[in-house]
């Protein structure tokens, strides 16, 4: 019997509908009563099913607009699907942008604390996270300064360190690998491998196929909202 997946979804489908500009105002309705409102509809994710086993890392690769981020958002519970269902059996953290929610006027320690709280990290774990972030980000001399004193690279390093410090069992990572200089990118990749070795599970979205193949057990290729093929250690490119 195959083990119960830590995260799975079945037949996920999501469409978006947007009114085209100009939106019909009441004055337009009176002056042009026969003009019909036009809407733009797109199916972002179309009947996607997948399972993530404990300790497994899955990469999702595809061109812009193929539905990768929408899929991740539905898995994270940020978007309700039109059809299908998501089942999760562990804590989950998602990262769609490094340093989300950071405030310019707050110091690193305040921002990290706030970020961890909003991610639902328990109080007792926050001090450990602070130490881990401080050690990893390499910004010790800026630690007590407000974020507005940081360079862009330092902010991203701080953001990455916070992201990686999350104690959740499942990580949903969207394009978070292009961070800082070459040395720091190496450090990031090593950190991700450490997380993998420690037994975490992850879904990683990236435009770098080489990165996905290096760190993931299998890579799903998406196109026009569908998973069109899969490549992995045990599954050859179909």
């Amino acid at each position, binding site marked *: 019997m195959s083990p119960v997946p830590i995260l799975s979804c079945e037949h996920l489908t999501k469409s978006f509908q947007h009114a085209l500009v100009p939106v019909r105002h009441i004055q337009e309705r009176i002056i042009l009563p026969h003009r019909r409102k036009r809407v733009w509809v797109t199916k972002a994710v179309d009947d996607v099913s997948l399972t993530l086993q404990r300790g497994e890392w899955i990469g999702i690769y595809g061109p812009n607009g193929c539905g990768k981020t929408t899929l991740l958002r539905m898995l*994270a519970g940020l978007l309700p699907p039109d059809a299908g269902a998501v089942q999760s059996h562990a804590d*989950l953290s*998602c990262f769609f942008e490094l340093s*989300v*929610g950071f405030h310019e*006027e707050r110091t690193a320690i305040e921002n990290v604390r706030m970020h961890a*709280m*909003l*991610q*639902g990290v328990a109080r007792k774990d926050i001090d450990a996270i602070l130490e881990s972030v401080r050690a990893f980000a390499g910004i010790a001399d800026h630690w007590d300064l407000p974020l507005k004193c940081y360079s862009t690279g330092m902010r991203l390093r701080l953001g990455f360190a916070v992201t990686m410090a999350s104690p959740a069992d499942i990580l949903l990572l969207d394009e978070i690998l292009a961070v800082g200089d070459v040395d720091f990118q190496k450090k990031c990749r090593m950190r991700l491998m450490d997380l993998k070795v420690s037994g975490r599970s992850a879904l990683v979205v990236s435009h770098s196929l080489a990165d996905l193949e290096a760190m993931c057990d299998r890579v799903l290729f998406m196109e026009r909202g569908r998973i069109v093929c899969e490549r992995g250690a045990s599954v050859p490119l179909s």
Partner: protein
Amino acid sequence: MLKSRYTFLQMTRIVWAVGWSDFTLKYRGSILGYLWSLLAPLAKFLVIYYVFKPLVGGEIAQYPLYLFLGIIMWEHFTVTTTHCMTALKEKQAFFLKIPFPRMLIMLIVGWTNMIIFLTHFLIFVVFVLAMGGSPWMPWLYLPILLLQMTLFALGVGMLLASYCLKYRDIQHLWGILSQVLFWLTPITYVYRLDAPISTQWGRFLELLHHPTLHTTFDLFVQFQPLSILIYDMRRVTLYAATQAFPSLPHILGVTAVLVALFALAARVYHYRSQYFIEEY
């Protein structure tokens, strides 16, 4: 699964910490800082006092304090309800990227604005003492009244926030409605509740028999929640020696209505919040 990470204690801690943080950061970078939150009610107070003192000042004991308390309670209501809508934009990044209980944002708004109200209320207490008022107040009533104010402001604010992204007219409409509501709330003029609300339902029949604009406005001013909240706060803080305190059935009745409003609004907001990402 996700909800289990956000225990009641955890959520309380987030609301407390983020609310304080938002309060301290709100005016950072401006020259006057916190004083900005005081200038709006103070300017309103000075103008209205100058205009209305000759008209109603003789009928109302301690009119400056009566007016000041009404204005700061009104400011709390209107700033909180508007903030509930603007918070969706301010915290857009959180809504788009972090799966957390959306209700937290509304509770943070409520707490931040309650902190500001408490600072205004402290100034009101200083004025009471400076004008020879008694330092003794039935303090036991205050937490209940503050709770009622928060339930009402957040209840209305959440209903507005639930639909303000879908219908962008709501924020403009609320700007106009709140100006109308200001004059339909007994902030500047005399208000008394001479008999228990429960015994006055018959007055609504008047509206059926004589559906005039005057009767409608009269009943609205008499029974709308803000009128009752401001009246209760005034008789507890200003007229404790001369007027009866709010009775237990009155407090329980008002609280029950406001809890019901809050619960309904929370349910609507919870349902609608799952579509916010698509409506940004």
